[in-house]
């Protein structure tokens, strides 16, 4: 089985980088697993969907920002949760749901059987800065544990990541 962990974000935009940090921390813990690939991505829409094609299972980690954001809250979604945005426009024309739908109709065999999306709520990502705010970092550590356990239930948990 081919599995992908995809961290999305931008580490020079503060908390927007949370997905990237989680991906890096999980990679440190599970780097010996031959069936797991970990990638980082700083774009969305079409380019995002192109990255997940051909895998059996995909876990995406991203930041979440909306009116109901509560910094540090972890959420889990499936692609179906974004279907209400299916026909809604988004940056450069196609959001995740639209791009996924397009590929589903054009290349159905390459769509992963399972796609899970974990997010961490963030407040503000409009300033150039590095590092995560305290609540987002704590949530990112917790989410790292969750994902490690999901992928490798027998892994020794509770280790702190060595770098940020």
């Amino acid at each position, binding site marked *: 089985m081919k599995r992908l962990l995809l961290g999305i974000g931008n580490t020079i935009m503060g908390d927007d980088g949370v997905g990237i940090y989680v991906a890096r921390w999980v990679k440190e813990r599970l780097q010996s697993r031959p069936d797991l690939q970990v990638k980082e991505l700083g774009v969305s829409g079409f380019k995002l969907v192109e990255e997940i094609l051909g895998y059996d299972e995909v876990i995406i980690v991203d930041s979440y920002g909306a009116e109901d954001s509560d910094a540090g809250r972890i959420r889990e979604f499936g692609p179906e949760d974004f279907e209400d945005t299916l026909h809604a426009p988004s940056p450069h024309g196609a959001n995740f749901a639209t791009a996924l739908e397009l590929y589903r109709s054009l290349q159905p065999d390459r769509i992963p059987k399972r796609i899970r999306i974990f997010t961490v709520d963030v407040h503000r990502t409009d300033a*150039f800065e590095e590092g995560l705010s305290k609540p987002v970092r704590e949530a990112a550590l917790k989410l790292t544990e969750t994902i490690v356990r999901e992928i490798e239930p027998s892994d020794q948990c509770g280790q702190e990541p060595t770098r940020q």
Partner: protein
Amino acid sequence: MKTVTIDPITRLEGHGKIEIFLNDEGNVENAYFQVPELRGFEKFCEGRPVEEMPDITSRICGVCPEAHHMAATKALDAVFHVDPPSAAKKLRELLYSAFYVADHTTHFYILASPDFIMGPNAPKAERNILGVINKVGLDVGSSVIKHRSDALDVVGMIGGRRIHPTCGVPGGVSKPITEEQRAKIEEIAKSEIEFAQLTLKLFDDVVLSNKEYVNLIKSDFYTTPTYYMGLVDDQDRVNFYDGKIKVVDPEGNEFARYSAAEYQQHLAEHVEPWTYLKYPYLKKVGWKGLVGGKDSGVYRATPLARLNVAEGMATPLAQAEYNRMYETLGGKPIHSTLATHWARLIELLYAAERMHELSRDPEITSQNVRTIPTAIPDEGVGIVEAPRGTLTHHYTTDGRGLVKSVNLIVGTTNNHAAISMSIKQAAQGLIKKGEVSDGLLNMVEMAFRAYDPCYGCATHTLPGQMPLEVSIYSNERVLLRKLRRP
């Protein structure tokens, strides 16, 4: 007076809103375009090694990282006073041409074509790429996906990564390409040329064969006479990667021609109290407000602007299309904002042809791809044509190469004033006596969509959708009505 706010704009990079002010009769009095600005970029860069700039700046935009990477790399050449070997310049241009193919393809099929293929008044649920594919067929859809992806593969081959290339270094590129890669690029480029021709045929069939659309393109409310700006080579032909910046006036006469380092002699930036946006304008003409014409320093830097300033295209098929566009629309310069879509497709064809030319260049697999810099770094400007307009990176450093100051004029910034003017003009033609429908608003949005504007797209937070909100205010700013699109 009523205010109509379209917030945020659909199919726009980043978040933005349009405010349309109606007078007591319900007709458009004024229109403004506003976007929030990402903060602290210059401070973030200060004190960092300037060699990091191609990587940092490519991450400020999720759409055109290649353009920032290239402008930054050229600025580094200038900062370190180093001239890259010819093969390195050709490799950069080859990468950049491939990026243009992917970017212009994305814009046409995903942003622009729904308005024309589905129609500006089609229901929102159909006016998108999925509706387009349903209408034109899965084969076209597969071809779009393939050619976009192949072009990004070329970016990856030369740039090291498909999305955020890393090859640009002061004095050249970090690695040469192999003969095997070259042959693959040549094969891809050949196919991209055919794809670009098919896309132009689709534009012909759908847009140019439809009298209603041609009238829309030529209509007064999509026409804004301004100055135009773009890079040209030494034969006055369009060039995305290098050359002199040329400016023509609204009558098409040459107004200025200058090299990257001289940009501050020609451009100034106007600031309005109600927005963070800066409005670049031609210094020697002056700022006269959000108005067009010869006495106003407002200029445009878009695909259409590039074609307006040039004497032609450097490749044969694109040149034939260039001639056809000006013959069809009544000569140079063309002021119709919607003709930008046509110009963009001519550039798509040029980019594909240029990819093909460069892939067959005997020098392209040369191992000599870098001149090692030896001079003390100080200051440099790098300019390329981003798909959305002339992109300028200007850095100063101390003698150790640590950044002291940064100034960027990004593609869309050039067009801030013109975008507001185009929106106002379209709104004036389309909104009468306070009547505001979804279709009308979309046609107003079409005015700025032609610019392929890109703002503050450095973050990627989910859910990633931008619902459209329309707020209508009374003259006392009391909210009268609020409409929200999903």
